[in-house]
């Protein structure tokens, strides 16, 4: 048996690969549910339950929004060859920026704009730092951005436990509630802030257009696919990398703004601000095969998995460790299906 790269798999094959791997994951989950004493069919139903009612759909959307924003940026960064593993940290810095604008700058109608400027700016700065280190010293951005996640996380813990700790927080680690001017509007009764949803959709479309139709995108694609050719042509490699990194960091920062100003309404512990969106979004970008527009599809899909697992937790009072196994297995199945559909399997020796 041999594997061969298949660069343009047929839709039928892709469908088959996904069906096969999802089936595999569901079988494994069935065993898990049985061991836990839950009828598998009921659990499967619960996993899909968010699709059944508007409130559930809103839960899916709530998780899809940060994935969309970050994923679109990451799809761009990956295409340019900037392997940004630090979206989680950039998101947290975006949250810090938003919190500063909300809590310490005079409130007014301009507050949301300030939050996005400051939050996005900090996120971009955080990613830009890694790009600069790579361009200037050749430091691998995979390592630097990964480490920056810990720095950002520690910064947030320090702020909510120390200087920014709320007056009314008592023993809890969070800031005061944001003033009304700093609260982003939501869609109806849901927890979906529509400004970030809109930004996410716009970002995915815009980045796709930029990448496939503009001179800048042309240079980006050359650099990402063949850095040697970029050097040969004399493209400004450093500038192109930096620009892609800044864009990706900016969007991750926006996602952070949306989480604290649209949902939590205060800065709190890192693990509560983000459910690992910065990492799950890597998957969203990869499943979209580096096409920002494709993230419009993959982000809601991953959102559904996260929301379905949450529904399971609530309905069956399952511990989150078990629920994490559920979402983890499903994500793994997606990775497997995507990897297999990108290859041709030759059975002949």
């Amino acid at each position, binding site marked *: 048996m041999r594997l061969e790269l298949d*660069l343009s798999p047929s839709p039928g094959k892709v469908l088959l690969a996904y069906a096969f791997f999802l089936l595999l994951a569901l079988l494994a989950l069935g065993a898990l549910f049985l061991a836990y004493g839950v009828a598998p069919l009921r659990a499967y139903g619960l996993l899909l339950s968010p699709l059944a009612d508007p409130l559930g759909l809103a839960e899916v959307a709530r998780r899809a929004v940060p994935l969309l924003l970050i994923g679109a940026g990451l799809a761009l960064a990956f295409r340019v060859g900037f392997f940004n593993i630090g979206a989680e940290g950039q998101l947290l810095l975006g949250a810090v920026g938003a919190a500063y604008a909300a809590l310490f700058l005079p409130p007014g109608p301009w507050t949301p704009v300030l939050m996005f400027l400051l939050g996005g700016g900090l996120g971009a700065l955080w990613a830009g730092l890694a790009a600069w280190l790579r361009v200037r010293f050749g430091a691998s951005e995979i390592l630097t951005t990964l480490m920056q996640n810990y720095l950002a996380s520690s910064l947030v813990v320090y702020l909510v436990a120390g200087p920014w700790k709320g007056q009314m927080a008592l023993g809890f680690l969070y800031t005061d509630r944001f003033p009304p001017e700093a609260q982003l509007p939501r869609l109806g009764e849901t927890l979906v802030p529509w400004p970030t949803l809109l930004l996410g959709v716009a970002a995915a479309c815009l980045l796709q*257009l930029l990448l496939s*139709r*503009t*001179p800048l995108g*042309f*240079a980006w*694609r*050359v650099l990402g*696919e*063949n850095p*040697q*050719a970029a*050097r*040969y*042509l*004399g*493209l400004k490699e450093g500038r192109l990398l930096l620009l892609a990194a800044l864009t990706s960091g900016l969007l991750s920062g926006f996602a952070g703004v949306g989480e604290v100003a649209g949902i939590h309404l205060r800065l709190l512990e890192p693990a509560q601000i983000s459910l690992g969106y910065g990492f799950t979004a890597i998957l969203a970008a990869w499943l979209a095969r580096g096409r920002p527009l494709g993230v419009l599809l993959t982000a809601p899909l991953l959102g559904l998995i996260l929301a379905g697992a949450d529904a399971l937790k609530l309905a069956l009072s399952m511990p989150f460790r078990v629920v994490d196994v559920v979402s983890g297995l499903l994500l793994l199945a997606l990775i497997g299906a995507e990897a297999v559909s990108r290859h041709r399997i030759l059975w*002949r*020796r």
Partner: protein
Amino acid sequence: MLRLENVTKRFGPVVANRGISLEVRGGEVVALLGENGAGKTTLVSLLYGLYAPDEGRIFLEGKEVRIPSPRAAQRLGIALVPQHPELIEAHTVAENLALGLDLPPVFSRRALVARLEGLLAGHPLGVDLEAPVHRLSAGEKQRVELLRALLARPKVLVLDEPTSVLTPKEVEGLFQEIRRLRSSGLAVLFISHKLDEVLAIADRIVVLRAGEQMGELRREEAGKDALVRLMVGRSPAPPPKAAPPGEAVVLEVEDLMVPRHGFPVQGVSFALRAGEVLGIAGVAGSGQRELLEALAGLRPYRGRVRFLGRPLPEEPARLYALGVAHVPEERAMGVVGGMSVAENLALRTYPRYARRGLLDYGAMERDAEALIARYRIQAPTPRTPVRALSGGNVQKVILARELREGPKLVLAMHPTYGVDVGAAEEVHARLLDLAREGAAILLVSEDLDEILALAHRVAALHRGRLVGPIPREAASRECLGRMMAEGRA
């Protein structure tokens, strides 16, 4: 010893080998002659277990065999000397040779050397077993590959274009070794696209064209013209004649130094006039690449370089804008595989297609179609990714892009490497056209015939120093070979 019967291999719709039947007996050298893309490498891959044939049978010593992997090929007694030495540069010769042996988990260096010397008794070594491979010349590396192949005590030895990295003198040494092996009863299959070599070494010659076997000749009955007709399907055009060069100096290089590993390029000086073709030969790795890349703005250098009387900028994009074209040594550097033919043809000029910020792909593809037709690039549509093209067509894409604006200076390295004879003739004609229009052409090539056919003056790089240039009329193949190998005319 080795017999192929009606062997066919397809890749999708492309038939790489169609009904090939040939036989190599012990104590015989059979040459497989064909242009690039004729299917020689595919046939080697079939013999070495990299692909399985779709049809046909392979016999070894009268028994039908299946060769599922290189390992199996070695076990059956088929050894391959690859076109480019595939050695681990940081390791010693002995360690590289040890890779093909079954060794105990722990062994001493001395025991290894002793064992190798025992195994290779009867073969002249020609290299120091303790020397690290990166210090060896290309010829010595090939020698190591040959020794590695012989370690397995093969019955059939396959040599895939073994002379492409050797000097003429090294080629002679290799041929002597092949004759010695032949007399010891080995069956040798010699793959090449060079007529002279095939005529010098082979007992029988099998010619391939476009995957099909065009004929088989005994050496005594084979003439050059007949072979070329079989290879190309028509008589070769006489090499085009270059027009005499003009007076204006286009490129002036004085005391150029380029740092690098091995032999730095040092003290290279020459002047290149409008309409002149200067050919630079050299054994691979003598500094050709560094010289060309320095001039193309890809490497820092010291020394004085003037282009049309002004200092040469060191930025590739500005150089192109000034009229300096660069055909890089490696095709992989000159194209982006996942992007379309049209996009690759526009790699230099893409910003011009911007209309209100967006690229006008319609215009880009129309221009591409014109170039595709002019250079006879075989691509289904301008949107086909370059990755899907054959090596020769990729090379044509690079040439079409670099020459499309009528450059004033062409820096070309191996411009016809891997291109079939027909296309190579077109490339040569195009380069000479440019020279006639007043462009200066710096041609770096390993193909001495190419240099001798095109250049007004010839030179060679020897360990980073330039030997020559001397007028073409004063240079012969032998003389150029000496310049490459010994650094003197």
